[in-house]
């Protein structure tokens, strides 16, 4: 590749290009013909683009396809949090048409807002939990989560905690292990950072010996880190304390997943696998309505249920009554009575996220 060094196109430019270090006069010569043809090109391209866009719009808006119509309208849909009631009603109606067509059943999309004087909270008795994971399965079913080998989504995880042990032979193992000053002992062996952990624990019988269980889902933090990091406010805290996601507004940057200290969020890596027969038709816009690929989702305390006065699915299904739910602002609610009388703790309290998900023991 050669360029014959300098006076490249117009020798006259050579002088014009000289100047102060880091500077020069313009090294191009205006050419009316070129400018005119460039203007013409830009004009033609602009016209072509506008025509194409209008044609696409006409095709999509006049389409009988509910999905195409909805997707087109969603392009111009605002952030749900800022929509007027009328806009919300239109958005919901669009989605109902689309889902009913897609799943061949009557699907309702609720848009019930938060009620005044309600702040939802959750309490879980870890002494009672037997690790049966019925809550996980009920949640998957209720909330239309993707279930396929390729894309499996679970909002609740039930951790099996194995107990560590103290051993005499490690009594003198301190840190930093034989070098320098001993800083604390190391007789305790944790059951280990699990490098090859089990995806599923499938014991014949629960609870297992020497194990206890710790169910975890979204903690519905009062100061949620996920909300803070979302660049477009697609996720936010509702007045009743539930942290929700406007799936239509989410751009799929996955920052919220990285920021959650409880690892409670899931991404739709592909189109969620939701068989028609398993689809729960009673949905909420901010909750269990079918999600699209490329957006984040998480537990919403079953917003479609709790705003109608029902318990979350996991509370209903728990065979040992380990899960309790209620209004934290109501002194007579079950959850408030637990907070008043039981030994309660919250997970990662040092993060100051103020979860509304409490653990307790009798």
């Amino acid at each position, binding site marked *: *590749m*050669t*360029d*014959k*060094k*300098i*006076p490249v*196109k117009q020798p006259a*430019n050579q002088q014009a*290009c*000289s*100047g*102060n*270090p*880091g*500077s*020069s*006069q*313009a*090294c*191009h010569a205006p050419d009316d013909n070129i400018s005119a043809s460039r203007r013409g090109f830009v004009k033609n391209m602009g016209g072509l683009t506008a025509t194409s866009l209008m044609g696409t719009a006409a095709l999509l808006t006049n389409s009988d396809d509910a999905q195409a119509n909805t997707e087109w309208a969603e392009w111009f849909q605002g*952030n749900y949090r800022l929509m007027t009631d009328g806009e919300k009603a239109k958005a919901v109606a669009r989605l109902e048409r689309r889902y009913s067509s897609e799943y061949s059943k009557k699907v309702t999309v609720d848009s019930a807002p938060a009620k005044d004087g309600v702040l939802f909270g959750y309490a879980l008795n870890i002494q009672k939990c037997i690790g049966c994971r019925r809550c996980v399965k009920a949640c998957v079913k209720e909330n239309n989560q993707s279930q396929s080998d390729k894309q499996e989504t*679970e909002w609740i*995880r039930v*951790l*099996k*905690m*194995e107990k*560590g042990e103290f051993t005499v032979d490690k009594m003198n193992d301190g*840190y930093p292990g034989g070098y320098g000053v001993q800083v604390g002992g190391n007789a305790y062996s944790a*059951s280990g*950072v*699990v490098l090859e*952990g*089990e*995806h599923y*624990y499938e014991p014949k019988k629960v609870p297992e010996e020497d194990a206890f269980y710790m169910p*975890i889902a979204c903690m519905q933090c009062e100061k949620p*880190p996920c909300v*803070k*990091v*979302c*660049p*477009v406010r697609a996720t936010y805290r509702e007045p009743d304390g539930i942290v929700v996601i406007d799936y239509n507004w*989410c*751009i799929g*940057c*996955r*920052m919220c997943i990285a*920021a*959650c*200290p409880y*690892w409670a969020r899931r*991404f*739709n*890596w*592909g189109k969620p696998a939701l068989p028609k027969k398993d689809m729960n038709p009673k949905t909420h816009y901010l909750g269990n309505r079918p999600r699209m*690929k490329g957006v*984040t989702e998480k537990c919403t305390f079953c917003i479609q249920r709790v705003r109608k006065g029902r318990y979350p699915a996991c509370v209903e299904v728990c065979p040992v009554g380990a899960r309790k739910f209620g209004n934290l602002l109501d002194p007579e609610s079950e959850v408030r009575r637990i907070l008043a009388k039981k030994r309660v703790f919250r997970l*990662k309290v040092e993060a100051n996220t103020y979860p509304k998900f409490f653990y307790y023991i009798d």
Partner: protein
Amino acid sequence: MKAVHYSVIQGKSFGYILLLGIFGAITAFGFGAALYMEHNGHIVTGMNNQIVWGLPHVFAVFLIVAASGALNVASMASVFGRALYKPLARLSGLLAIALLAGGLAVLLLDLGRPDRLIIAMTYYNFKSIFALNIILYSGFFLLVGIYLWMMFERRMNPFTKVAGFFAFIWRLILTTGTGSIFGFLVARQAYDAAIMAPLFIIMSFAFGLAIFLLVLISSYAWTHREIGDAVVERLRKLLGIFVASVLYFVLVYHLTNLYVTEHHGIERFILLDGGIYTEIFWMGQILIGGLIPLLLCLTPLGRSRPMVLLAAVLVILGGLAQVYVIIIGGQAFPLELFPGKGVSSSFFDGQITFYQPSIPEMFLGFSGIGITLLITTFAIKVLPFLPNSLANKDVDPHFTDQSKGDSGPSAEAATA
């Protein structure tokens, strides 16, 4: 210093067309991969719910960090008044813009919903460091664009220093913002560290300069323009200082973590038994990207032009390794909910996550480099970014090449 003459390159040779074709093809493959990912979803990538940012993010962050670093050469001329770097200022500005464009393209095409990009561009959560970065990137384009205009337009030349100053401050803020994306992530053991911001700044110095050196030497060699040791030697030594600084910051980061018991898990993972991540850290980041370039840049071993090129290439490879360890390694280590407890669960808790980049991810990642070089190659043909000569006699007549024992003008006189 003599007056600097700039010119465009002819760009009619087979080599030039071939280069454009190669960079265009890399870019096209990247866009194809993005389309494929958009159509099928990110399920076709190696990412999962633990490693939510994969190889495209590694390339994107690397290029964005390098973009601000590439502007350093111009800053040294305009802000710090170093005359030697003034002829290089235009190319420095061009590379800054091209690198940022390449990095951002990859970042945006890796969104779960790139079709909703308009939301990210028009609607901001000002508490989000991610949103602030979007503003910083847009501002960087604008400021560097103005800076270049001041340099190109003779009547605007008096404002070059002011524009350069603002661009310099902005680039510091920008890299602080990029580093803070990780520094502010309190949830992950590998991040949540204030040192991330200055670490990223110093990384940008090294990566940006390495890319600058590579492009500068290559473009001068391929267009048969002269570039003397006065420029290359200074840039080589500067690169050495930047590489040493990166190593220092990495050392401080790990020493701090090692002192704090809470972080022993992640440190053990990265430094000792993290498998591929440990190997990439020691072999890629420290040896290939740190110690060898340090040797080449700060000792007479690296005086020859090929060795300078080698040092630059190694810094770039090491930089990619470093960003890989930070982004992928940092996410692969399981989030600790109960330190000291072994945990297994119904959903991958407690596991070191397996990640293997897929081919579409690789294509998308490399397309960032393709876009950068495509812009650069095209720009030097249409606008005069390159000085006609960077020979010693033109940029620094008093330069003394100690290795050859000559001494600038007197040596020339003797020859004459």
